[in-house]
C-alpha cells in the first residue's frame, strides 16, 4: 500500500463489488430462513432438498443442457470452418462475409430475437428447443470464430506443407497436424459458447414459447419470495459447477502448452 493507495483501494473495492454478491449465494443457500437477510438463522439443507424435488426445474435444466450442448457443438464446428477459411484461404468477398458473421457480436440481441421470431412465425415454424438453438448459434458463432481464428493463426503454415511433403493428403494432414494443434482453441470455444448459451435469456425467452429453460425458469421463480432461497441454492451449485469446468479447461490448456512447448501467455486461472 506504499505506492498508489487510491488505485489499490479502487481495485479491492471493484473486486469486492464483483464477487461479494456471489459469495452471498452459498451463505443464504444454507440459511434456515425464508427471508434473505442478516442475521443468519442456522444451518439447513432444506433448500437443496426442495430443489431436487422440483420437477419443473429438472425439465428446465435438461432443456438448458440440451440447448447448450447443441449450440456449443454447432457454433464451434461452424467456427472451425469460418476460422480455417479466413486464415488459410483467399476468396472473393471474404471481408464482408466475415464481417457479417461477426456482426451479431455488436448487434443488440433483442433485435436478432425479434427479427427471428417474426420470420419463424411467418414461415409457420413451431417454436421449440430447436428454434432456441438456431437463435443462439447465431450469437455464439462469432465468439467461436474469434477464438478459433487466433488458434488457427498461430499455426505455422509450413507444418502443413511438411506433412504434405512427407506424403500425407490434405485430409490426413488436417487430422494429424492441424486438429491436434488447434485443440486447445476448440476446447476454449466449446466452453465459452456453452456458458453463453447456458445463461442466455433473451432468445430463450422469445423463441422458446412454453419450453422452460433454466435462465427463464430462475427469473420466473424470483416472483415468489418463498422460492428465492432455493434459487440461491441452485446458484450455489452452478457456481461450483462453473469453477470445476474452468479448472478442467485450464488443466487442458496448460497441458496443451506444455506438450507443444509454447509460452504460457496467461489463461483463466
Amino acid at each position, binding site marked *: 500500500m506504499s505506492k498508489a493507495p487510491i488505485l489499490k483501494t479502487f481495485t479491492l473495492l471493484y473486486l469486492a463489488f464483483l464477487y461479494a454478491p456471489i459469495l452471498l449465494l452459498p451463505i443464504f443457500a444454507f440459511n434456515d430462513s425464508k427471508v434473505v437477510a442478516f442475521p443468519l438463522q442456522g444451518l439447513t439443507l432444506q433448500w437443496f432438498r426442495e430443489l431436487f424435488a422440483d420437477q419443473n426445474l429438472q425439465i428446465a435444466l435438461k432443456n438448458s443442457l440440451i440447448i447448450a450442448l447443441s449450440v456449443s457443438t454447432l457454433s464451434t464446428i461452424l467456427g472451425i470452418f469460418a476460422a480455417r477459411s479466413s486464415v488459410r484461404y483467399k476468396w472473393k468477398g471474404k471481408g464482408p462475409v466475415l464481417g457479417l458473421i461477426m456482426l451479431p457480436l455488436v448487434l443488440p440481441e433483442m433485435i436478432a430475437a425479434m427479427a427471428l421470431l417474426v420470420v419463424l412465425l411467418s414461415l409457420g415454424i413451431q417454436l421449440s428447443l430447436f428454434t432456441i438453438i438456431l437463435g443462439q448459434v447465431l450469437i455464439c458463432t462469432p465468439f467461436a470464430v474469434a477464438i478459433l481464428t487466433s488458434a488457427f493463426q498461430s499455426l505455422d503454415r509450413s507444418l502443413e*506443407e511438411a506433412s*504434405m511433403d512427407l506424403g500425407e493428403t490434405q485430409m490426413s494432414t488436417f487430422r494429424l497436424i492441424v486438429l491436434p494443434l488447434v485443440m486447445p482453441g476448440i476446447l476454449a470455444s466449446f466452453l465459452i459458447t456453452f456458458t453463453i448459451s447456458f445463461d442466455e435469456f433473451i432468445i430463450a425467452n422469445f423463441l422458446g414459447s412454453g419450453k422452460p429453460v433454466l435462465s427463464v425458469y430462475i427469473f420466473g421463480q424470483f416472483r415468489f419470495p418463498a422460492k428465492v432461497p432455493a434459487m440461491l441454492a441452485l446458484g450455489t451449485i452452478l457456481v461450483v459447477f462453473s469453477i470445476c469446468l474452468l479448472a478442467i479447461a485450464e488443466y487442458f490448456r496448460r497441458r496443451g502448452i506444455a506438450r507443444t512447448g509454447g509460452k504460457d501467455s496467461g489463461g483463466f486461472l
Partner: protein
Amino acid sequence: MTTDEKPTMIEFKDVHKYYGDYHALRGINGTIRAGEFFSLLGPSGCGKTTLLRTIAGFEDISSGVIMIDGKDMASVPANARPTNMVFQSYAIFPHMSVAENVGFGLRKDPRSKEEKARAVAEALEMVGLKGYGGRAAHALSGGQRQRVALARALILKPKVLLLDEPLSALDKKMREHMQIELIKLQRQVGITFILVTHDQEEALVMSDRIAVMFEGEIAQLADPETLYRRPNSKKVADFIGTMNFIPCEIVSETGDKVTVDAKGLGRVDLDVAQAPPARGEAPVVGLRPETLTLLYPGQTTSERTTEGVIDEVIYFGDMTYYDVYLGGTDVEVRLSMRNVPGRPVLEVGTKVEVTWSPSALVLFR
C-alpha cells in the same frame, strides 16, 4: 569437373510464375544434375524460394515445364513427388516426439513396426542424434531441430532434398559447423541437394554449382570458382564477394584480345575470356581485393605495379583492408592483406606501391 558426367536430375524449361500481375519467375532454364549440391543464390525477392517451392510442388507454375528424373511434374502433387524439404522454420511437429517426427513419412510404409523403428534410429544416428528419439520435439535446440528436420526428410530416401535457408536461424559458429556437416552428409547419402540461400559465402562453401538469381531470372549458373573469378555481369560480381570497379576505355578489340585503358592502372591487354558479353553499360574493369597486393619495402615483383596513397585502414585481426587511391587519380580500390609476422599494419596517408596481375581483371561493358 566430374559433375559433367552425372545425369540430369531436374530440368527447367522456360518456367514462368505469376502472382496476379507480379512476374515472380521470368523464364527459368537450366539443369540440376544427379548427386549435385546445387544452390539457388540471390537477394530476397529474387524468386529463389519460389523456384524451390515449384520443385516441391507447393506452388504451381504459370507456364513452362519442370522435369524431375525425366518425368514432367505438371500433374504430380507435392505428396507424390520424389522430393523432400527442410523448411526454414524446420516445421518440426510440436505435438510429437523426435522419433514420431522422423518416422512421420513412414506412416503408409508397409514395413513392420520394428523395422520402421530401426529406420528411425538409423536416420537419427546419421544426423548425430542417436538416442534422442524419445525426447519431446519442442525441447530441442535450433541445431537439433534442424537435424531432426534433415532426418525426417532423408528417411524417405528422396531423389532430391530441398533446403530452404536451413542455416539462417542458427548463430554464426553453429552455421559454419552445419555447413560442413551438410556437405559431408550430402556426400554420404549421394542425394541431389538444392539449397536456397541469400548468403553468398554459404553458397560458395557448400555448392558444386550455383545459380545466381536476380528479379526472377538466373543471371549466371556456374561452379563457385567460375562465379567468383569470372562473373558474367557487374551485378553478379557485386553480389558475390567484393569487387573494385574501375572506369576504363576500350582502346582496341581483336578476335581474342581486348585492350583497355583503365583509370589509375593504365593500358592493359585482356584475354577475350576476361570479357563477358557486352550489355551496353559504361565499361569498367573489376578486380577482387585479394588480387591487389601492397609492395613492402625491399620486395620486388614481376607483375604490374601502380602507385597509391592509403585513404582508410580497416583492421580485421587476420586481415587488414586498405582503401587506396590509385596513381594520383580519384579512383579508390579496396585491397586485402593477410596480417603475417614482419608485415606491419600501415597508416593512413602512407604512399604505397600496389601490384596486380592483368589476368585477374574482368571487363564489364
